[in-house]
């Protein structure tokens, strides 16, 4: 038998590796990533001092949506499930924060973990039916969450303020920071968004991330590898809802007002559309999707006042036609066109 034994293989490796792992290339690409991250971080910190408050607010909202899309991406892009109800998890986070503020005057930093936790638990609860359903059937069940939420919020007027909603004071910038309110809110959101992003990356690079990818790519094969489908599908829902709830809490901080009509089915669908347009399963997809969700409806309004919905729809179709793998995929394709230096 000509099979090389383990020791042979080990010797071969130490003496002359058959294929060098090309550390130089790895280093170059890693360095490029760090450089890109540093430039982005610098730009993100510099921007609020250059823009007018309304634009700072818009940028803050992009980050809020990006956090929600990060969660949706985990579920749809990485675990291969679908949710047409993520607006509901977003709303639960927003309302949890608002009620804690309004009722118990909880300091605002404390509302974040509670809101995230509440959304996590709700996600866990809805992850249980998700274990058994897939594709269109799962889509329908998640759509139901989004549909029944609005009437429910209007019902418990005592707590939720009914259809009038709740108006709250926004977190005030501390004196030491010397920042204006919009800038303070921007940096708060930025810190949470970066933390959420890092948590998400860590999760995906771990054993859990590999399990989710395996479920997405081939459920049967994942199962015989020993991946517990039920556990991971349910947890994917819960994690995903947790990010949406976190985004909802940020929304409450930034807008200072929640009402049932801010969280209709439309929000859920816009989130999913934003993610697909941004780029499913990619790291930059949620941020690009956040930009899309924030700015494109406004652009549609500018193009034609009478039918912004039609223009918005056409823009989605246009983007998907030009970039079938989303804006992130398009960006990747353009970057590869740049000739590499040898």
């Amino acid at each position, binding site marked *: 038998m000509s*099979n090389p034994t383990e020791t042979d*293989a080990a010797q071969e490796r130490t003496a002359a590796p058959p294929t060098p792992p090309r550390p130089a290339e790895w280093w170059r690409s890693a360095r490029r990533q760090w450089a890109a991250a540093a430039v982005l971080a610098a730009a993100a910190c510099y921007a609020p001092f250059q823009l007018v408050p309304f634009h700072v607010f818009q940028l803050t909202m992009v980050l809020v949506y990006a956090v929600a899309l990060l969660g949706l991406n985990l579920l749809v892009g990485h675990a291969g499930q679908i949710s047409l109800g993520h607006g509901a998890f977003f709303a639960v986070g927003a309302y949890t924060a608002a009620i804690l503020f309004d009722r118990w005057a909880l300091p605002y930093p404390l509302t974040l973990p509670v809101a995230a936790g509440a959304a996590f638990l709700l996600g866990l609860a809805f992850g249980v039916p998700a274990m058994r359903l897939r594709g269109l059937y799962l889509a329908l069940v998640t759509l139901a969450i989004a549909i029944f939420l609005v009437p429910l919020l209007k019902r418990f007027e005592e707590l939720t303020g009914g259809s009038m909603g709740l108006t709250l004071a926004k977190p005030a910038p501390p004196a030491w920071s010397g920042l204006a309110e919009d800038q303070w809110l921007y940096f708060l959101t930025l810190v949470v968004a970066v933390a959420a992003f890092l948590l998400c990356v860590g999760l995906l690079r771990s*054993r859990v991330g*590999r399990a989710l*990818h395996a479920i997405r790519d*081939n459920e049967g*094969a994942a*199962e*015989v*590898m020993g991946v517990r489908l039920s556990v991971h599908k349910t947890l994917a829902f819960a994690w995903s809802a947790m990010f949406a709830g976190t985004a909802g809490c940020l929304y409450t901080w930034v807008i200072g007002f929640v009402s049932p009509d801010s969280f209709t089915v439309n929000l859920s669908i816009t989130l999913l559309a934003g993610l697909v347009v941004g780029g499913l399963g990619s790291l930059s997809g949620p941020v690009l999707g956040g930009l899309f969700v924030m700015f494109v409806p406004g652009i549609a309004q500018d193009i034609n006042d009478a039918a912004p919905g039609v223009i918005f729809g056409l823009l989605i179709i246009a983007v998907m036609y030009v970039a079938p793998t989303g804006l992130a995929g398009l960006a990747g394709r353009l970057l590869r066109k740049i000739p590499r230096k040898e």
Partner: protein
Amino acid sequence: MTHLVVKDLTAGYGDARVLHGVGLTVGEGEICAILGPNGAGKTTLLRALSGMIRARGTVTLGGADLTGHPPDTLARQGVAHVPEGRGTFMPLTVEENLRLGAYVRRRGPELEADLDRIHGYFPVLKTRLKQAAGSLSGGEQQMLAIGRALMSRPRLLLLDEPSLGLAPLVTRELFRIVQAINAEERTTVVVVEQNAHLALGIAQQAHVLETGRIVLSGTAEEIRADEQVAQSYLGYRV
């Protein structure tokens, strides 16, 4: 010493019964070939053994009862199934695929040693570690699928049609490696294969399955010598 014992196994899909009381035993460290025409239930038998479909009857591995458990539990019990069509995770890299194979064992220092072990059997995988599994050739993907199964350090390796869609030379090489793995690690192997000649070449014993029943069992030599088998099930004279 018998290792895998299957008794009166029935299984199917929905209302359709495919296996009607299959029984077989495989000794520890043996290779057992399952032969038979299309639709005989060969793939179904492997699926029932790895828990991918519900089955009735009893299956024991090294004395432990495996019947009726979900596939992830069986994977933890040491059953590794290489499904038909390989089931590699195409968008993931070769390395990620291999690491997924060790999913049931969590992280550990042995994991790196196991990667080396797999590279020993399949040197080509080592040169492709960062490549997407979908970009490999059919033969390399089959090697990856088997390597991935070995990462779980299985006590029972189930191979479903490893030759599917591969060139004859590649298939031969693959069977040689399977034999080497079996010889070195004493892993019990059950292999379903259309290429009876190759399968009988590495197996100690073989069973011929027809419409969900075992119609003939024996040592590889006996099955090979059986004229009737050659004509009716294998389609040629050996």
